[in-house]
């Protein structure tokens, strides 16, 4: 067992333990903090495997941004900070499934890669940058657009603003009250006439 192996083992133990705590902690904030540890351990393992840029990106993106986002989420949803039952009744089932999955995966991994080794020669950031902006430029651009899309999407869902109303069929339990004015509205003239449905609908469906 070489030195990198030992380092790797350390990240393994740390990250694994943290990951288990993330999914079992009774306190939500603790869970978030364990997540930080787990993700840092992942970053460390990147480092040991020669992916330096990835390691730092991991720390920045995940530990720096994602976890903060999650903490915000916890706050905004006013999650109870104290310890409490965070598990549903499927717990045994979940243990069986995930345990089975783990055993299965480890078995096949060991069977397949039992004696394989990983090249830990660090990848130069410049090399990575070059392929990223030449060969992988297109996916990279698309990924950028994807992030924009997700940003706008998150915004649409999360914001509340003036004049916002329910959609025509937003109702609870789907009661049969159609929009009377919508029904009376002559079909072809739709394009030009201003539908006044928004206002009516707002009164019906506003929470």
């Amino acid at each position, binding site marked *: 067992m*070489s030195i990198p*192996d030992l380092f*790797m083992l350390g990240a*393994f133990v740390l*990250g694994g333990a943290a*990951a288990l705590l*993330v*999914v079992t902690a009774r306190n*939500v904030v603790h*869970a978030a903090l364990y997540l930080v540890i*787990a*993700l840092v351990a*992942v970053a460390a*393992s990147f480092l*040991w*495997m020669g*992916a330096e840029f*990835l390691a730092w990106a*991991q720390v920045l*993106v*995940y530990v720096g941004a*994602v976890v903060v*986002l*999650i903490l915000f*989420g*916890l706050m*905004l*949803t*006013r999650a109870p900070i104290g310890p409490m039952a*965070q598990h*549903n009744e499927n717990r045994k089932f*979940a243990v069986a*499934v*995930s345990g089975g*999955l*783990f055993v299965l995966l*480890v078995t096949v*991994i*060991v069977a397949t*890669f*039992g004696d*394989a*080794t*990983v*090249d*830990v*020669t660090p*990848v130069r950031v410049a090399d*990575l940058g070059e*392929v990223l902006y030449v*060969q*992988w430029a297109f996916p*990279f651009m698309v990924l950028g657009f994807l*992030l924009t899309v*997700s940003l706008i999407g*998150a915004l649409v*869902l*999360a914001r*509340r603003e003036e004049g916002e109303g329910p959609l025509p069929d937003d109702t609870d339990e789907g009661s049969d009250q159609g929009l009377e004015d919508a029904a009376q509205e002559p079909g072809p003239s739709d394009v030009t006439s201003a539908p006044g449905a928004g206002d009516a609908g707002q009164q019906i469906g506003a*929470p």
Partner: protein
Amino acid sequence: MQAVFPLTFAALLFSAGVYGVLSRRNAVLVLMSVELMLAAVTVNLVAFHGLVASEAGDPLLSGQVFALFVMGIGAAEVGVGLAIVLLLYRNRATVNVDDADLMKY
């Protein structure tokens, strides 16, 4: 480096994530579990990159680039996911996943 270590690490993270997704009630905690799974994928990718590099070589650095993309996508997903959780919370004042069963059968 032995390939089994990172790969088993990834498997552990992944399985833990699965466990969390299946058993956590709080939607935010479920999101965290998903993050664990994505992290597992990145570990896998990086490890496999090393594996490939040690054998045939990978001039395009596909594994690492892929891992990078996965991180980006993970971030995007978390953003949207939190927005959905917030929306749900606003309308129902709870973020428990298993309370959401208005629609079934």
